[in-house]
């Protein structure tokens, strides 16, 4: 299991502005930092964390987290929903699920194991969403 990154690293994703990889307060608790949606390479919120804030994220083009997400959590600061999507272009007519923001809604905000479905959507239980997320976006923002 890879070591979680602790420093804030600012990366540039071509065409989509800046995204920041956020630290988490504790390993494996699935409590994503305020304002972020989070993806983890391992079940149980383990492995490598990637958190996104204010970036219409796509993993397309070989980004290292494409099709490698095994658990997820969401904590949008002004956006109630975080969508995790099968297609790499945010189109929702294939597999997808959404999580609500922990701080804004306190419900449906994380899932430790995507193999048995997650959140709300066509990837809800009992579907298998493991290692299939290829894009993500915020919705229902204020």
């Amino acid at each position: 299991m890879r070591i979680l990154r602790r420093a804030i690293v600012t990366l540039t994703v071509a065409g989509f502005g800046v995204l920041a990889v956020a630290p988490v307060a504790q390993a494996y608790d699935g409590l994503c930092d305020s304002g972020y949606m989070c993806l983890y390479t391992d079940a149980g919120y383990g492995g490598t964390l990637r958190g996104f804030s204010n970036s219409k994220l796509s993993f397309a083009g070989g980004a290292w987290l494409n099709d490698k997400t095994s658990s997820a959590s969401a904590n949008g600061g002004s956006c109630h929903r975080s969508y995790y999507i099968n297609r790499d272009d945010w189109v929702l007519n294939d597999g997808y699920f959404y999580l609500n923001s922990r701080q804004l809604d306190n419900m449906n905000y994380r899932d430790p194991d995507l193999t048995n479905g997650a959140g709300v959507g066509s990837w809800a239980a009992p579907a298998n969403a493991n290692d299939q997320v290829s894009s993500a976006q915020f919705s229902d923002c204020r």
Partner: protein
Amino acid sequence: MISSHLPGSRPSTVGARGRVLVTLVLVGTLAACTGGTGDDRARDDAPDAAATAAAISAGVVLDAELNQQTGAITFPLDPFLPTKADSSVLDEAILLDAAACADAQGVRYLVPARDVPQEYDQDALDGPWTIAQAERFAFVQPMTDADLRGNGIVGAPSAPPVAPRADRTLGDIPTDSPERQVVDECYAKNKKVAAELRAAQSPTAPWMRELSDAATAAQESDVADGLRAELRACYEQQGIAVDPAAFDDGHLGFTAGVAGADPGTIDADQIALAVGVVRCKDQVRYTERAAALVAQAQAPLIIRNLDEMRAFRQNLDDALAQAQDIVAAHADLTTTW
């Protein structure tokens, strides 16, 4: 040629003005549906003509509907799925159920009652398809201004001045506070209701997968390739730079197969490019024809799975009724968005 919308993300009634009903000739068309190989398999897969006629008589729509006024594209699958408004009501009921529980224990906060902005009714299909869409969103997926900002879209409109809010919402209660603990316990108490309401809006049955695969097959068909070739020819004629890889892949996406199109930016150049795309789409009737291919692929599967899909819809309607009762019962705990 896949649309961008949240499944069912449009109102169940569509305005009469500006609607284009893309009508298919069902007999024979259904018997020759894509998704299989060989005429024999197509015939074996074709639904019973009587069942099809009966479904149509009962109000099942097997055509694609395009609404230029709203920017909505409605496929045959969509009426069976929750709209964005439905989804918001179901979420709100869960939130209010917990808020009422917390309020009874002295922890009072209000739940934003969400209207559903019209932007969520809009669809893109391989990029923008109306001039209004192109002028507002360029190649960006239609969404509210707030969502544009939330997703970091370059060129998103600035936020309006925020009036100070007197109401306390859940976001105002620190996550590590004793009050939040009370809220957590209330959510734990209403887990069953929450799970039911969430499941009701989650189409996880095999037919959802089949319909998605059918739409993909429609995208990959020879007919779709031919349609894309016509669009490409128009681009070249109009001096719009083509992204050859997108056409070779048979996957245009939000950038509509245009080199230099950026699904993360709205500016004058992107808008001008997007308007050019829409004009070419109009010229070759791309959107109607592409939508018809998806509808054609969906139609036989809907007929075949109609009982299960109706059961899903009924369960969803029952959940909506339950949710609306909860929302009405706790209207005093709602505030504006």
